[in-house]
């Protein structure tokens, strides 16, 4: 399994094209090349966290500061961040634009990812968070822009699920 260099670039350029210059993240394999780009970009502020729930607080701080912001995390990190999403972002109507690496889903070879992969969509639905799957590199920049716009207009989280089709090289 190799992470797609080209599509990581496409996703990163999509983030930049949405006007965002601030990212909080917990690194993981599928997000590695993306975050490398963020680190090498002198215009981008990248804040890595020790646990994903912290990033919900950091995103709220960025919102209060007036700084456009996107969160990058794995779906298991999303699961770890739920109380922050519910009791900070949703309670106080703070927008969150989350790009979530959807591990443990269609085609997953690693057993440890599979429970989280199976429940991610159901948890997003239970939380009332609108989401889309990002599969096509030709569409992903638009999906990021639209998810970002929706989170800001609704003052609510929005999630874009980064799939295997997008993030891994075809075998």
């Amino acid at each position, binding site marked *: 399994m190799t992470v797609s260099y080209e599509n990581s670039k496409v996703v990163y350029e999509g983030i930049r094209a949405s006007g965002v210059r601030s990212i909080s993240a917990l690194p993981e394999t599928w997000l590695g090349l993306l975050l490398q780009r963020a680190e090498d970009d002198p215009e981008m502020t990248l*804040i*890595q*966290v020790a646990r994903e729930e912290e990033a919900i*607080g950091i995103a*709220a701080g960025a919102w209060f500061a007036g700084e456009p912001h996107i969160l990058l995390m794995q779906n298991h990190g999303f699961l770890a961040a739920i109380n922050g999403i519910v009791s900070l972002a949703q309670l106080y109507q703070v927008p969150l634009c989350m790009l979530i690496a959807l591990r443990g889903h269609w085609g997953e070879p690693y057993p440890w990812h599979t429970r989280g992969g199976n429940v991610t969509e159901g948890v997003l639905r239970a939380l009332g968070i609108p989401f889309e799957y990002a599969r096509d590199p030709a569409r992903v920049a638009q999906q990021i822009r639209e998810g970002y716009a929706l989170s800001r207009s609704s003052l609510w989280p929005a999630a874009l699920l980064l799939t295997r089709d997008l993030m891994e090289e075809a075998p």
Partner: protein
Amino acid sequence: MERRHCIELIYPELQDKPVVTIMGACAQELYDLGHRENFFYLQHAMGLASSIGIGLALHRPEETVVVLDGDGSVLMNLGTFATMARYAPPNLVHIVFDNGSLLSTGGFDSHTTQGVTDLAGIARAAGIPHVADTSDHMAFGEAVVAAFEREGPSVVVARVKAVGPDHYGMDLHLPENAFRFARYLSGRRHDT
């Protein structure tokens, strides 16, 4: 030393600084001194007040950001000290009231009750450059003033009694607080 006296002592210094508090007693005691548009009370999501402070401080370097935290909350997010040390916002002052109690959620013992766990020690070991451990008003006041004056993230631990207000309630809806806090900050940006 009581937390409400500590907050009262520094209250005049807080009038031009964005302040993020944790839930319950700490929020109420600040509110009771007189709400200001630059105060944000995080009434839930325990542990994240300091994360909000980091996000705010990194994106608004011209502001001195103050977080009023507690032992119960900070114990839920100890990683925050490491994140704070790594990005080291020079304009962040993180005050941790350690009363050794989960006072606002029922008065249960916290991990610091027995005096075994040392929050200032944890902050230091995480790499926070300026950490003060205080147990009287004089030392607390001096540590906070020094933190306001210097560059570099500061943690001030204040060892206080496990007592809180005899009433709770604010004439402020939670999203209203968030909206007004954001407006205060956008207004400050336009002023400068």
